[in-house]
């Protein structure tokens, strides 16, 4: 393959025809408060894992809501489930439960098996 000093940029458009939007409904069944999230980012601002890694809970939640699962399982593994995000959430969303259940739903979809 040839290289001419530039790369072909990947599109940032979400394809809703191919996105699995049903997975989010399964999460809502398990954590109804997820529906109240307004993506303010307070959870990410206070996240300890975010201080040391690029883990971004707000982004993970948003991508999952839009049916974009690529790389999501690896990102969620960075969370230590400490629950600080839950304390600062202005909408009372059970963020800790979201992460825990996101891993289960993704596992059910065979995106990545959770070890024990």
């Amino acid at each position, binding site marked *: *393959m*040839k*290289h*001419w*000093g*530039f*790369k*072909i*940029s*990947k*599109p940032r458009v979400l394809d809703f025809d191919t996105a699995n939007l049903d997975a989010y409904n399964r999460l809502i069944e398990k954590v109804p408060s997820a529906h109240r999230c307004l993506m303010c980012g307070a959870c990410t601002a206070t996240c300890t894992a975010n201080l040391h890694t690029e883990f971004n809970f707000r982004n993970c939640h948003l991508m999952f809501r839009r049916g974009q699962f690529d790389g999501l399982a690896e990102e969620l593994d960075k969370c230590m489930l400490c629950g600080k995000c839950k304390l600062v959430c202005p909408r009372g969303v059970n963020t800790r439960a979201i992460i825990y259940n996101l891993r289960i739903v993704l596992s059910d979809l065979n995106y990545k098996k959770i070890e024990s």
Partner: protein
Amino acid sequence: MDNKKKYFWNEYQKEIADDNYYYERSCIRQSFFPGSETAFLKILRDELGKTIIDDQNQHTCTGIGYHSDVVQFDTTMTICARLFSLMTDKELKNFVPSCVTSFGIFTEVFETWQEFPEELEKARNFLRKATGREFNIPENISHPSDIIYKYRKELKQKMKYQLVNHKTGKPLRVVEHIGCHYGKIFTKHAVGGAEFPQVLAGMIEEWGGEVIDYPERRHCCGFGFRQYLVMANRGYSVANTKKKFESMEPYKPDFVLTNCPGCTMFMDRWQYTIAEMEGKTYDENGMGIPVLTYEELTGLLLGYNPWDLGLQVHQIQSEALLDKLGIPYDPKDKFVGKSGKFIGQPEKPEILKVDYDG
């Protein structure tokens, strides 16, 4: 068409002059697609019997420099005013810019002068001080594709071939791509406006082809001056082309028809780039989808020699399309110039398949 539809469709029409044109050539088309402008002049003069002046004193419209932010609009207006003065010298009133970028520039200048008469006076003063010349504003600005569209039925009467696969009898499936600066800036200057541009679709349907309506039909080709001028930014440019081709691929188009030099160039050449960088081609045979200008298509259907139209200069080779149309050609003449001498041939790409050995 019922009266109500007809009324609204009239809102999307433009007036296209019927004769006595002043032709303004493109800076880049003559090197990228050298047969197209010559073919257009021949079609107008020999097939339609029109008068069109090809002035040797003409020059750039500054379009590429203007859109790359290296030429100010005052300069652009003055340069355009000089071109209009050349037209005035020839006692003509109908201006025909070959390039869609030029067409966008002239309509922008024209509309600016309509809205802000003081800018017109400024341009007149600049031109007078610089050259001592005067000019009249054109009564009509039409793109050459407008003129071919206007006379598509007359041309059909003279055509030897139709947009039909001569082996199967089925219409060829065609992607039409219209340059953004043709109808997206000042929509009233485009046939069908920005919403329903009909200029190329009208030709295709009249000449027997089938227009493909695919999701990214109105997406930019990726020319975007500031994207490709800096090498590091070319990824944005080629990404646009890739998006279009990925969108049209399932519809299996036989070829792409364009009316803009940039679109023809990039949709043709970026197919080579995508193939060599990612190993992907968008047709079944790995040869790419041919991209033609409307003059080349008109010339082909009229029976002109494909090599005189410059099809050998395209990156994507067009022999497969010629075979579908039933147009004869001599492979030995492909790289022979008008003097009868061998003009050389390009190197063979590593991944994209071509008909020559290289």
